[in-house]
């Protein structure tokens, strides 16, 4: 069945912009409801004129100003009553690129249950204060839905599936003002309504009036978020359940790669840390990690595989007296939870230099001071964030961390918010194109440090992998970090920060003065470098066996076997 879609426009005193908006919308040949939220007489007259000339437009007037949320809610219910199945919400003020409605309608008609959200890409006209408000909102929404996949919830361009959405808007007491836009998204995710996204251009017109009142609406936003956060705590087990079993519920647009890992836990605990402190977080950790342990079958299996392979090595036998059991895996999981809390401590600057022991600190600090530049290869063994504590010793540390997630930008702003003195930039590799590449070279030449994990394979270049032995079995390692180091012609170091007792011990060692990759035997040369790295990684695994934070089949050798069995 093809959807019966209409347009809903909430309006409050945008008498100029609405004329152009209506002009631009005409080509879609959709019926349009304009909900006038108690505008002044001039706007009312403009609307009456439009209604007279355009037979596809119907206006409804509130006598008093009730708020954008109230207008949209009314419009959605009204549209449903008139027999429409879907409604496109368009703001009256002409900020949105209305050309993208066509695309949104296509997505909506292919996924008729879905709530289609425009994701704004701002041009330079956006006021800073608005951007800041958006970052705060992203952070909150990430916590409330335990996901960062709903990227931007404040954009008023979206397609609602009316049947399921009006069930929410008519039953729940949702915000009547700007807070509505966000709240409805969060509640939709809770109700398991699939969300689809599409990037659109947003322009803030120079003479445009925005009704977003910086102070007042931010207060309202905070109020709404507190309400939603409490709602999240109540729904927590259920959300977690959904998270595990309906992974694809919030599907990013096809062009965006899925985020890896279980970062919801990071966000939840991060927030709690800030608000309730470290002790509370540690208490929160037990139920969260236990739940995660019980429901995360894949991660549990991965933990078991890692521990078993560690045990099967000669060194490993000295560490484990008997074959690792489920209790060891649970311990492994708890260690992961602890690491999350400590990561946050480190970001905020709570891990002090006194709590860290750094044997080779001089060499590391020299690397920073002399500004020769360098590539530091880290890993997901231990907790690299604690090197933050060292920044107290050097006035100006510039570090660039290459991250695999597409949320590097969000993350940067989150870091800045937690601690404004941090100057660690996360650069997202998956988007690394020619300009980022040149930027890296410039940074290296400027003497900045580039930190990259050596134990994760990139989702973008799956071909650049070498299989080398790790804990007795061949495992895929990314060639990227080593090629990068070779191209940048900088010295290469390894860095591991492992917790030993109550202290963090940082191991910093020189890996190579310069990695040379001769043209002829490039592959072999690379493999040799990676083998050397794997040996060092193993070495540190023996030192801190439970601080291995790769909870997936690291060797990636299970699937083929299964397929073979089937065949």
């Amino acid at each position: 069945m093809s959807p019966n879609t209409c347009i809903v426009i909430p309006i409050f005193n945008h008498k100029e912009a609405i004329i152009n908006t209506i002009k631009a919308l005409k080509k879609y040949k959709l019926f349009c409801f304009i909900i006038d939220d108690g505008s002044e007489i001039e706007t009312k007259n403009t609307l009456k004129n439009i209604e007279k000339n355009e037979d596809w437009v119907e206006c409804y007037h509130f006598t008093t100003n009730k708020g954008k949320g109230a207008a949209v809610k009314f419009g959605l219910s009204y549209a449903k009553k008139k027999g429409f199945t879907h409604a496109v919400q368009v703001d009256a003020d002409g900020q949105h690129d209305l050309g993208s409605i066509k695309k949104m309608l296509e997505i909506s008609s292919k996924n008729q249950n879905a709530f289609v959200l425009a994701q704004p890409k701002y041009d330079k006209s956006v006021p800073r204060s608005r951007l800041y408000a958006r970052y705060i909102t992203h952070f909150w929404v990430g916590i409330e839905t335990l996901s960062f996949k709903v990227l931007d919830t404040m954009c008023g361009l979206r397609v609602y599936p009316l049947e399921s959405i009006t069930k929410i808007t008519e039953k729940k007491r949702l915000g009547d003002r700007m807070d509505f836009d966000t709240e409805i998204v969060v509640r939709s995710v809770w109700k398991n309504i699939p969300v689809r996204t599409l990037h659109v251009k947003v322009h803030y017109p120079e003479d445009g009036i925005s009704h977003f009142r910086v102070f007042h609406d931010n207060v309202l936003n905070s109020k709404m978020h507190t309400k939603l956060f409490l709602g999240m705590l109540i729904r927590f087990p259920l959300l977690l359940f959904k998270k595990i079993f309906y992974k694809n519920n919030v599907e990013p647009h096809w062009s965006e790669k899925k985020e890896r890992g279980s970062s919801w836990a990071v966000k939840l605990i991060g927030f709690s840390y800030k608000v309730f402190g470290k002790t509370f977080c540690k208490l929160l950790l037990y139920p969260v990690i236990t739940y995660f342990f019980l429901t995360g079958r894949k991660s549990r299996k991965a933990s078991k595989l890692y521990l078993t392979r560690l045990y099967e090595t000669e060194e490993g036998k000295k560490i484990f007296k008997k074959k690792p059991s489920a209790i060891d895996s649970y311990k492994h999981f708890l260690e992961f939870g602890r690491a999350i809390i400590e990561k946050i401590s480190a970001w905020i600057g709570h891990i002090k230099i006194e709590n860290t022991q750094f044997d080779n600190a001089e060499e590391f600090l020299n690397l920073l001071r002399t500004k020769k530049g360098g590539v530091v290869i880290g890993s997901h063994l231990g907790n690299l964030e604690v090197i933050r504590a060292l920044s107290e010793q050097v006035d100006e540390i510039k570090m660039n961390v290459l991250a695999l997630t597409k949320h590097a930008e969000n993350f940067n702003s989150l870091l800045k918010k937690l601690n404004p003195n941090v100057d660690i930039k996360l650069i997202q590799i998956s988007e690394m194109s020619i300009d980022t590449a040149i930027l890296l070279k410039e940074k290296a030449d400027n003497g900045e440090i580039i930190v990259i994990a050596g134990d994760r394979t990139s989702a973008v270049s799956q071909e650049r992998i070498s299989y080398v032995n790790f804990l007795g079995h061949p495992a895929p390692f990314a060639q990227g970090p080593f090629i990068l180091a070779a191209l940048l012609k900088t010295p290469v170091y390894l860095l591991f920060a492992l917790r030993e007792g109550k202290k963090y011990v940082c191991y910093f060692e020189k890996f190579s003065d310069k990695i040379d990759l001769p043209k002829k035997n490039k592959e072999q040369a690379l493999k040799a470098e990676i083998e050397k790295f794997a040996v060092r990684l193993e070495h540190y695994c023996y030192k801190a066996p439970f601080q291995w934070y790769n909870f997936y089949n690291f060797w990636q050798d299970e699937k083929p076997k299964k397929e073979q069995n089937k065949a």
Partner: protein
Amino acid sequence: MKELEEEIKELIIDSLDLEDVKVEDIETDAPLFGEGLGLDSIDALELGLQIQKKYNIKIEAKSQETRKHFASVKNLAAFIQESTK
């Protein structure tokens, strides 16, 4: 211009070790990255540095323009010619 384009193609093949690719396999208009020739981010870095070195030109980091310049051999040739004038 044609000469420069051929030269760039050779440089691409040479610096990226594309052994089984010949100059005539690379289409002047086809996208270099992603689809088309299918180069990835590491190739981008390598190629960028080579071009910088060989033609002694400055490539702007973090600019959308740069992406455009490196979109195809044709764009690249135009960019080099413009920059070395």
